[in-house]
């Protein structure tokens, strides 16, 4: 097989597994390895396991423990950052999950997730027709454009903040801020489907592309130039996976809400003089799918520094070195206790800064970290950046 010209391009599961130097540079940054401790839970071991799991022996010969270890990963991208051989571990591990699915080795939790998505079009246990119920809580519902009405921007809400009460304030905050700027926002409402990322995580790219295709058609009908999302996983999927599904340009420019808010702020769309100062010490958690996996570190930080009264402090591990919250990679469905352990460590790190507010720009991170703060009785308010901003103008 001839090598691709770009030596850094992903060369397939088997070839990348051979490239692995077994050096162990990936171990220190891995959030699951930090919790579990055994070598088998390290990224290095997952690469070694991949060689066995990806081909050859039938499903009956593979110990379930090996599959579990291979899937005990949030896809935070930390190991990719640390790997001296430049292995794109995210692509590697997603490819491995596909192979496991093909071999019938995917866990029951993933099959249930896929069945739920097929039935409902979202990751929650609720009917998709309830997806836009949060609109009823808006103080100014007029900010939401009705069907067929013109709007400056579209908003892809994401499943977690649409259905889970703990973070239902996020779409309210986003819509309120957009409305305050005198703009109208179009949403898909119950037409919005899961972005497809959980299916990619479950090794089911074909099913994911089915959802993507339908979302693409529906967003195109909105007729907006800009599509905003507050969910980094939706954002990453839209910007990295949807182009291939679209087979051409996307129907709109896709930006994360923090980028969009910063653009608007710079354009003078919001008067900070009207913002109530926060007067708190605030620290920021980099969501993996926004930070490491999408390269967006600055916009949230600029927004925090711009807020009157905020004393911003960084956590020990931030930006490229940020510790994952534990909520990604479908890990929560596979091992909720492991997710809780990782989240507790991240909350402890936030507490160590002396901050009283922990903010992030991800619905899943906020949900997972808020639950960890409650469980560990941390004197810390966990809140999404959009909500933090929106509150300043209430």
């Amino acid at each position, binding site marked *: 097989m001839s090598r691709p010209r770009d*030596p*850094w391009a992903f060369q397939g599961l088997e*070839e990348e597994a*051979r*490239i*692995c*130097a*077994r*050096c*162990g*540079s*990936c*171990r*220190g*940054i891995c959030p699951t390895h930090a919790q579990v*401790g*055994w*070598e*088998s839970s390290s990224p290095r*071991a997952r690469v*070694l396991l991949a060689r066995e799991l990806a081909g050859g022996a039938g499903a009956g010969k593979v*110990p379930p*423990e*090996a599959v579990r*270890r291979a899937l005990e990963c949030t896809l935070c991208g930390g190991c990719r950052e*640390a790997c*001296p*051989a*430049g292995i794109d571990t995210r692509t590697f591990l997603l490819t491995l999950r596909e192979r496991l699915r093909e071999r019938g080795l995917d866990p029951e939790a993933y099959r249930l997730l896929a069945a739920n998505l097929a039935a409902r079009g979202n990751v929650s246990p609720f009917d998709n027709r309830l997806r836009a119920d949060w609109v009823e809580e808006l103080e100014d519902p007029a900010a939401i454009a009705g069907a067929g009405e013109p709007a400056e921007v579209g908003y892809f809400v994401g499943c977690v903040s649409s259905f889970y009460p703990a973070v239902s304030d996020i779409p309210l905050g986003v819509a309120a801020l957009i409305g305050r700027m005198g703009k109208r926002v179009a949403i898909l409402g119950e037409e919005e489907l899961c972005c497809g990322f959980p299916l990619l995580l479950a090794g089911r790219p074909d099913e994911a592309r089915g959802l993507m295709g339908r979302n693409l058609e529906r967003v195109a009908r909105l007729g907006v130039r800009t599509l905003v999302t507050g969910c980094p996983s939706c954002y990453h999927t839209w910007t990295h996976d949807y182009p291939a599904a679209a087979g051409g340009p996307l129907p709109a420019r896709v930006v994360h809400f923090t980028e969009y808010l910063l653009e608007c702020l710079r354009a003078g769309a919001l008067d900070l003089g009207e913002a109530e100062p926060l007067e708190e010490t605030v620290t920021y958690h980099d969501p993996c799918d926004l930070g490491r996996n999408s390269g967006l570190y600055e916009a949230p930080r600029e927004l925090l520094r711009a807020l009157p009264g905020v004393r911003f402090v960084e956590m*020990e591990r931030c930006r490229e*070195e940020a510790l994952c919250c534990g909520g990604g990679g479908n890990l929560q469905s596979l091992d909720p206790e492991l997710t809780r352990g990782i989240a507790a460590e991240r909350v402890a790190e936030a507490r160590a800064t002396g901050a009283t507010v922990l903010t992030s720009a991800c619905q899943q991170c906020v949900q997972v970290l808020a639950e960890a703060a409650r469980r560990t009785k941390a004197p810390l308010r966990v809140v999404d950046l959009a909500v933090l901003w929106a509150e300043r103008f209430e």
Partner: protein
Amino acid sequence: MHAAALLPELGPRVTTSLLERRFYAGDLAYVPPAVLRRVADPLPDAVARPASVEEVVAVVRHAAAAGTPVVPRGGGSTAYGNAVPVRRGIVLDLNGLDAVGPVAADGATVWVGAGATWWELGRALGRRGLALGSYPSSARAATVGGWFAMGGLGIGSLAHGPLVDRVRAVEVVLPDGEIRRLDRETDPPLGWFAGSEGTLGVVTRVELAVRRKPAAESHLLVGAEEVGSLVSVAAAVAERLAGTVFHLHLNDGPYNRMLARLGAEGGAAGPTLAVDLEGEAGELARAEEVVGRVAAAEGGSLLAGERAWAEWRERFHALRVKRLHPALLGAELLLPLETLADYLARCGRLAAAHGLALASYGHVVARDRVLVMTLFPTDERAPLRYLLDASLLEKLYSLGLRAGGAPYAIGLWNTPYLERAFAPPALAERRARKRRLDPRGIMNPGKSYRAPWLLHPLWFGPGMGAARALRRLVGAREGSR
């Protein structure tokens, strides 16, 4: 047996799971199973992950009572079999002993758990305005205890000496289970454990000298046509800029050409010397001028500044060349700086004679010594070819020994060179320490002191020579098809 005995103390931190044990039966190096089986029995009976020195004691005492080997393991980031069992036993995964602190009130030293990585330690110190004196290029993976056990030469050693010079004391669990705090005055002294490769006891904590973070840093890259010119530059810079030069790192032409294929900016075809400086801004400016003049005097030139900084940023990524060559074999040697050019020239001739793509890089670790890694690609999917290629390692080590050098580490795979690497009195002293501290031979046995029969120097050298001849024959036949 072991798990049941250790359960009361370690609970879930001991395992006999086959899946788990398999991961502790190897390190960086790929060794064809057919060969490995004849030299070692690497699958441990159990793996223990102690969370405290008391738990280490529990494991060691149990092992001593049972006559079972104990194999300390940190990052598992070497290629010589140091952390791989030779006679089964219990692997001690020390990564849980990773606490950093306390820092002494004067900020001059810090106690650190042996399982902390150098990367994490460096970051923890950085947050306090402190810095390491030296660290390995494998800092993300290598543990404090592991690098101490391996000799501790690497980045910063030129400025601050070998790691042992910066260690004030160590906490060790001896093979009889006794906990000792050792320094330079104790019996045994801490120096016995530096470079002992985990064979004299289990280092659990290290008291390490640290320093204030330097005010500023500067990075330069010198290019030249010949390695000899760069060696002269290195020697001159090391002498004239002592106190300002932190590190010197040399790449030969073939290694730089590999980097160029990976897209390294402004990829030089020839050898380069990276000069890494620390100090006050004014001091650095003067030092940069000195480097420029010295380089010019030797027929070299300063390359673009961004490339120098890129080389510095990539100092932990020497293995990025694996993207070009998924399987690599390498020899790591400590050489006199004055013989480096000659060694590399001989490597060039070896490469031509055997159709090899040899590439080398080195860290200048003292004014007169350089730690060199010489690599070449192979293919582990073809076991016969892989083994025939591996015979060339013996030739590389022989070239290094002839150049007045020695293997950097012994472990299992470099035991054939023991009697050439150590003068008889030094080897006798090394063995005497082992007999004294570990009379029952439970601490990481089967390596570091004597070669196993298959690797005995009497037939190892001739055997490797025959393999090289066969390799040329096979290669000639393949070339003639």
